[in-house]
């Protein structure tokens, strides 16, 4: 009998195209997702060396980071010259190298990590890479998915493999049930709070436990999306009936006999009993509260009922980091988190830009108005999410409440397009990073769930969704 294996072990073993004596592997890549920011230099490298894309049918490109999300983008002109050049470069590279492409004008365009699953490109057991750290999102399907640099993008384009050494296995188990008001976003932020942003470095995390099993596929994507914020190479969740139901019938999912064959294989994708993990973290579902971040690292997270901590509460290098953080964020130790006033709300991103996220926010906003002077926007994760939200009447709820209803893109998650914070502005954001300057130079970010973002838009301050 062979030794028990983790889910990660199984996927890894199935993709080793070549192994050197020292354990360096060429890992075969099933899906390579490409966007406009981290690919131009890679395509240029191919041109300079006269190389082709080895598997254009497994390479899926979509512009998302730079694209404006205002309604006038339909006119087709991106005003910022550098952004326009970058998107045009992707148009040309997709055409020249013959990869699958969803241009800005296509209703299927959106954030690459939302488009992949939506179109059925992402399937259980696959290896998925993209020049973007939030590629971890696809791990929700039991796919080994992680971000790579541009040199590696070029390597995958040319060879359909990645030079890799195996990571260690880490298990993150969330036991029991979540309490009312607690979401996938609160799970993933709480895990990062417990491990720190380097706690997962060198590991692939498998999330498991009743609370994870209870999540929808979209919730699971939210959890895996932020595995990178805990430093992990990837986050994984074993596929189950929910996964198969979600995948079935999507444009690029297998059909007929191929579906049956695939399904039989996917059902083998779980961690064997007694498989060994190098590190284990267990959290009780009922101990997880609705949380927000107060600082400039995703590990700076606390239940919404808490107060801003003091640098003295920390040790080592974190003391200086927290001092700097509090100064940047304009916060005072001891201040209640619910007293923090905000002026901007951003609902969207590859973390929380899917239909269920919009439903959760709309449920809070229905029949209400945002606070006077509040700037609030919803940026759906894809054109199809946007269309569905319009069909369900969610768009109208957002508009009636005073939100802007945008076209799909990364938008204010990283502020490469015109959606940016001004210095000193403070945003409740459903995105994934609260780094200094992330949403615009001098801008201040508090990460939270879509429902909590909606509540904050109404009250004008960070708000406990359970009091709402």
């Amino acid at each position, binding site marked *: 009998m062979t030794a028990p294996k983790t889910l990660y072990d199984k996927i890894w073993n199935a993709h080793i195209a070549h192994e050197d004596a*020292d354990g360096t592997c060429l890992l075969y890549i099933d899906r390579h997702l490409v966007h406009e920011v981290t690919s131009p*230099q890679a395509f240029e490298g191919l041109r300079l060396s006269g190389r082709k894309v080895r598997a254009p049918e497994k390479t899926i490109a979509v512009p998302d980071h730079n694209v404006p999300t205002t309604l006038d983008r339909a006119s087709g002109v991106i005003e910022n010259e550098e952004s326009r050049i970058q998107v045009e470069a992707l148009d040309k590279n997709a055409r020249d190298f013959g990869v699958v492409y969803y241009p800005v004008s296509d209703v299927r365009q959106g954030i690459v990590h939302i488009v992949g699953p939506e179109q059925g490109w992402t399937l259980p057991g696959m290896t998925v890479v993209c020049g973007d*750290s939030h590629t971890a999102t696809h791990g929700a399907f039991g796919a080994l998915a992680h971000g*790579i*640099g541009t040199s590696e993008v070029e390597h995958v384009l040319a060879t359909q493999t990645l030079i890799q050494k195996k990571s260690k296995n880490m298990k993150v188990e969330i036991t029991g049930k979540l309490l009312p008001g607690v979401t996938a976003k609160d799970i993933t932020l709480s895990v990062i709070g417990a491990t720190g942003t380097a706690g997962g470095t060198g590991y692939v995390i498998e999330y498991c436990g009743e609370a994870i099993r209870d999540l929808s596929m979209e919730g699971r994507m939210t959890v895996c999306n932020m595995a990178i914020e805990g430093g992990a190479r990837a986050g994984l969740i074993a596929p189950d009936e929910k996964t198969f139901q979600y995948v079935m019938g999507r444009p690029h999912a297998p059909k007929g006999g191929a579906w049956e064959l*695939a399904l039989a294989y996917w059902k083998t994708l779980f961690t064997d009993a007694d498989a060994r993990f190098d590190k284990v973290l267990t959290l009780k579902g009922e101990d997880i509260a609705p949380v927000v971040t107060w600082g400039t690292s995703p590990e700076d997270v606390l239940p919404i009922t808490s107060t801003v901590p003091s640098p003295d509460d920390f040790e080592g290098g974190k003391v*200086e980091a927290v001092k700097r953080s509090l100064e940047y964020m304009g916060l005072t130790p001891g201040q209640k988190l619910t007293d923090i006033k905000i002026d901007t709300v951003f609902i969207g991103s590859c973390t929380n830009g899917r239909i269920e996220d919009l439903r959760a926010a709309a449920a809070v906003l229905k029949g209400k108005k945002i606070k006077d002077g509040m700037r609030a926007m919803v940026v759906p994760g894809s054109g199809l999410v946007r269309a569905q939200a319009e069909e369900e009447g969610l768009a109208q709820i957002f508009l009636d409440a005073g939100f802007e209803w945008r076209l799909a893109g990364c938008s204010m998650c990283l502020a490469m397009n015109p959606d940016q914070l001004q210095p000193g502005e403070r945003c409740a954001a459903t995105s994934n990073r609260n780094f200094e300057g992330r949403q615009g130079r001098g801008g201040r970010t508090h990460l939270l769930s879509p429902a909590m973002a909606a509540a904050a838009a109404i009250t004008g301050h960070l708000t406990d969704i359970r009091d709402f």
Partner: protein
Amino acid sequence: MDKFTTLSGIAAPMPLVNIDTDMIIPKNFLKTIKRSGLGVNLFDEMRYNLDGSEKPDFVLNKPAYRNAEIIVAGENFGCGSSREHAPWALLDFGIRCVISTSYADIFYNNCFKNGILPIVLTKEQVDKLMEDAERGANARITVDLEAQTVSASDGTTFAFEVDPFKKHCMLNGLDDIGLTMEKSAAIDTFEAQYQAQNPWS
């Protein structure tokens, strides 16, 4: 990629923990379609005021560190976004080596692809080198990749670990893609077999 063999240079001290790639190169400079020219915007928001003038207190603006080739950094350097623009910006500024207790995974890999050596040492060792870094040109740090050692100005030498394949590529300035292309027969064989087993993939 330029070879990396030995380096003796000025090290800039950056003891802050969790220096992320958004700090190293903010998003507004990711719109380039080239690899070069990013050095002037390295650490842009820490380095310049809104009007474009230099912040005199920032380490790389101090006369002693304008020619730094090494950064001694706090833990978890390079966390966050996968942007390879971060090592491109470091390299373009002239940084060839970073020394810290830990790095984020993607940044660590990206460094090797660009001829920047990220060295991992213990907290005590990094603290010792941080002291040298604080002394600027009066205390140069010396790195020898072949020997896998880094030496403080007083001659104290620390050994460091590095993956043998990554070391080989760095010492010889090798292109990964060329090396992998030499194994294309193995990839062809694997792909044919894999595709037969997983026709949906």
